[in-house]
């Protein structure tokens, strides 16, 4: 219906400025960071200093004695308000404050509450804890057979059916062992002309949202309101209600604009802690983490990937076996989902007959790892696109041609058995190649300056099973309000959603307002993650807007107008209700995509995802062979965006994701010494700044309509993170003939590899 409506002003396809633009440039944008509540206490966290140990005692006396301290709270105190204080989306494994054991350095052990945050901080520094240290394990491979066992017993949350078989399992650090079996790789390897096997590693990095984690809880009369910089208001509500044993309706979760999320602010972070503290103190409690503390809260997954491929004489990949070990840290968070959901894409965007994948979620004594932009896919693309290039080189084939020969095309089955649709991987790759060629032949440099080019492409499945619900109200003046729990953390969802609603209602986008996420008034949504919102919430909102339109049409009939009668909405309401401004219509919409669960034995499913995302990157690098310093001089990103709702915002999502991944490729690295983070602050943990942006950076879109998407759209927030790391490593090999298999690609790593290639390897010292 609404596709016939002419382009609404600022509607779908228009690069209308973000709706909250004015607030953001004037400093008036609302973040939870700014929140102050009457009578509010500030909480400051005392953290574990051992990686694995039994808590023998916590001495809080000195902290209690500090004037102005309201209370000092430990895990034992939490039991008074929450008898089973373990949370998590996959496993109920994470205590609100450590109980009995600590499992990583930086784990919250106690909290000081005070009206003055400086007092709380000073007092927290006076707490002393005594531990009996236990053996600890930090490496994801060592964790498979370590004497250090992070959790005595596994406690699946019951949310995901594929974790049920792990219930009660003891003496293991394996939080999920996902397997995919398609065909028979072993006999295919035996028949193959060439077999290649390589191993890759990805380092731990952190999201570093510039608004550090912040949550507040406000106790009320038989209710609790949580204000949180969260990407998942609905999940927070359900999980806090579960912990408290309360009806969901007694927990209200409100969010605001987020100062960055990137996957850090999903599921439970500080919310369970502030909920417990507010109930203990019977006062509002806010915890604002310092930048340093973010590094103890959540990280990406460091990972080891082993990948083996068989290739026939024609340059066709016939078999691939991928083994992936995900370093999940001390608490599972959403790691098992990454292990499965990204795990099944580990063989890459290639058409391969025989595929085996083994993907393991590992517990270690490091800070918990969870979702981060790309949800594990950048780690996998790093491995399979480095591997792909290495094969092409070994075969003496052009890397583009080798990829094109093996690429997965629409109508063919992905390794999972799901048939590819609206996924133009070949066109994304072709556009990338075309853009790379435009620059003409590369000046390969001379002397100590060498240049090279590299490309890479990756795919990601969207989320399923999942549901978004939404509501659209149209007021008597024809303006509309959007009730959506999608959280705008910078990706521009408020604007995109308003554009979708404006388009569906046929009104200018300036007449649309988005109501901030609030579980008391806004319907359920799974969460703002995995680039799902444009597609899933977009569908729900379009349905809600169309429902509202139908009601407006019905209103026409009620007042005796023909369905096509041209009457302004304001005039229609006036005729219906007889009073200026009276009345409104409320449209609702729900979207749940089709999904077929994976077979537990084979990991196969005929309908694994509602859509695929494709992202490719091309890099030109300049390597200084005397220092190992790599400069990315040109970075090209091409992604499939379906139909872009707001092309300018899509473009900045692509450049932004690629630059973020550039940091993780070249220097970002959380460095641990026996589990102790040694660089958890921006002074030591460098993220990309103005000078790190390639001199030339460009983005291209393949606008292939996603036929199942709202107005043909699909998610795009992660796509440009996929290919950056391997494209740069491939370019480095092109420039200097050395292959790097571990991230990040620091000057030291590059220089050591160069020396080793020349037979002059440097010693570790």
């Amino acid at each position: 219906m609404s596709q016939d409506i002419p382009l609404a002003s600022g509607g779908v396809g228009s690069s209308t400025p973000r709706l909250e633009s004015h607030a953001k440039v004037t400093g008036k944008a609302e973040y939870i960071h700014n929140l102050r509540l009457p009578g509010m206490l500030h909480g400051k966290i005392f953290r574990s200093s051992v990686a694995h140990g039994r808590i023998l005692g916590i001495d809080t006396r000195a902290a209690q004695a500090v004037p102005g301290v309201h209370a000092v709270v430990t895990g034992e105190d939490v039991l008074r308000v929450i008898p089973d204080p373990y949370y998590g989306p996959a496993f109920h494994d994470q205590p609100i404050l450590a109980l009995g054991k600590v499992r990583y350095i930086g784990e919250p052990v106690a909290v000081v509450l005070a009206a003055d945050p400086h007092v709380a901080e000073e007092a927290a520094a006076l707490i002393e804890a005594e531990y009996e240290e236990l053996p600890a394990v930090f490496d994801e491979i060592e964790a498979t057979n370590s004497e250090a066992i992070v959790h005595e017993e596994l406690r699946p949350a019951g949310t995901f059916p594929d974790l049920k078989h792990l219930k009660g399992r003891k003496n293991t650090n394996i939080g999920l062992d996902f397997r995919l079996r398609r065909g028979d790789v072993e006999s295919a390897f035996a028949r193959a002309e060439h077999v290649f096997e390589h191993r890759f590693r990805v380092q731990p990095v952190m999201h570093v949202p510039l608004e550090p984690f912040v949550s507040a809880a406000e106790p009320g009369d038989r209710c609790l309101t949580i204000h949180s910089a969260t990407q998942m208001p609905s999940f927070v509500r359900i999980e806090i209600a579960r912990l408290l044993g309360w009806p969901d309706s007694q927990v209200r979760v409100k969010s605001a604009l987020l100062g960055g999320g990137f996957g850090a602010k999903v599921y439970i972070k500080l919310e369970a802690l502030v909920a417990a503290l507010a109930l203990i103190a019977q006062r509002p409690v806010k915890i604002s983490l310092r930048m340093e503390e973010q590094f103890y809260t959540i990280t990406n997954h460091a990972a080891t990937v082993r990948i083996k491929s068989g290739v026939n004489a024609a340059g066709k990949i016939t078999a691939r076996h991928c083994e992936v070990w995900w370093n999940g840290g001390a608490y599972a968070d959403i790691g098992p989902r990454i292990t499965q959901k990204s795990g099944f894409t580990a063989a890459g965007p290639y058409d391969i007959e025989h595929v085996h994948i083994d993907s393991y979620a590992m517990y270690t004594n490091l800070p918990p790892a969870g979702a981060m932009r790309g949800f594990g896919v950048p780690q996998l693309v790093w491995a399979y696109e480095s591997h792909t290039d290495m094969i092409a080189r070994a075969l003496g084939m052009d890397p583009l041609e080798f990829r094109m020969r093996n690429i997965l095309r629409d109508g063919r089955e992905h390794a999972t058995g799901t048939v590819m649709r609206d996924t133009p991987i070949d066109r994304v790759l072709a556009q990338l190649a075309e853009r790379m060629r435009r620059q003409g032949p590369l000046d390969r440099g001379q002397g100590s300056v060498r240049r090279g080019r590299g490309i890479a492409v990756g795919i990601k499945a969207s989320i399923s099973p999942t549901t978004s619900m939404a509501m659209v109200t149209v007021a008597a003046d024809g303006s509309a309000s959007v009730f959506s729990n999608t959280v705008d953390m910078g990706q521009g969802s408020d604007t995109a959603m308003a554009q979708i609603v404006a388009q569906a209602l046929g009104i200018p986008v300036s007449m649309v307002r988005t109501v901030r996420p609030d579980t008391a008034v806004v319907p359920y949504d799974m969460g703002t993650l995995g680039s799902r919102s444009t597609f899933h919430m977009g569908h729900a909102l379009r349905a809600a807007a169309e429902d509202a339109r139908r009601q407006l049409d019905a209103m026409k009939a009620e007042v005796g107008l023909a369905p096509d009668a041209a009457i302004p909405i304001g005039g229609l309401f006036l005729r219906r209700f007889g009073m200026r401004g009276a009345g409104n219509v409320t449209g609702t919409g729900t979207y749940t995509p089709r999904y077929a669960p994976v077979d537990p034995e084979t990991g196969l499913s005929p309908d694994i995802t509602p859509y695929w995302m494709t992202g490719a990157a091309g890099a030109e690098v300049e390597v200084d062979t005397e220092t190992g310093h790599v400069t990315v001089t040109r970075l090209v990103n091409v992604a499939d965006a379906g139909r872009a709702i707001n092309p300018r915002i899509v473009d900045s999502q692509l450049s932004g994701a690629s630059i973020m991944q550039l940091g993780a490729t070249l220097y970002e690295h959380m460095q641990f010494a026996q589990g102790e983070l040694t660089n958890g602050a921006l002074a030591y943990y460098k993220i990309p700044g103005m000078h790190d942006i390639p001199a030339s950076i460009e983005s291209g879109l393949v606008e292939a309509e996603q036929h199942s998407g709202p107005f043909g759209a699909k998610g795009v927030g992660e796509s440009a993170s996929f290919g950056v790391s391997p494209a740069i490593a491939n370019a480095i090999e092109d420039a200097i003939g050395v292959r790097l298999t571990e991230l990040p690609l620091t000057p030291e790593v590059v220089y050591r590899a160069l020396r080793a290639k020349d037979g002059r390897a440097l010693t570790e010292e």
Partner: protein
Amino acid sequence: MGPDGDVIAFKLNGKEVTARVAPHHTLVEVLRNEFGLFGARESCGQGLCGCCTVLVDGQAVSGCLYLGALVAGAEVGTVESLARDGELSCVQQAFVECGAFQCGFCTPGFVMMASQLLERNPDPDEGEIRDYLAGNLCRCATYPQVVEAVRCAASRQRESAIHSIHFKTDKEEDKHHA
């Protein structure tokens, strides 16, 4: 100064104000807690990200490290002073049009520094823009769009400066004729 601090007087966004400031309170805390100004915000806490950028006597400082008490008698400018009567400054307008922000948390700092850059150098080249904004971090990495916005603001400011010079010259000529 006692532990609760002293009352200090300073000029905030053009207005004379007073506040009781404890010796350990940072300028960002003073702006938030005493004046409800949230545009300058603490992020890294180390003076490295630029989210807390505030002008003190015309000089950009890191408000998360700068002690509040030190602004006694000084002139303090925050991002909230840039828009006049709801009308965005040229730099702010360019940031909006070029889509030079995503989450917006770092934006006030970028807007402050970009404004100061254009005051000192009305025609910066790309290298100068990057140099000047090297102390501001944007985790959404909206850097290419920020550079574009600063160039756009610079060219508009130069045009309007030329325009106002012409205007002035015309007027002076009128006076001369009169």
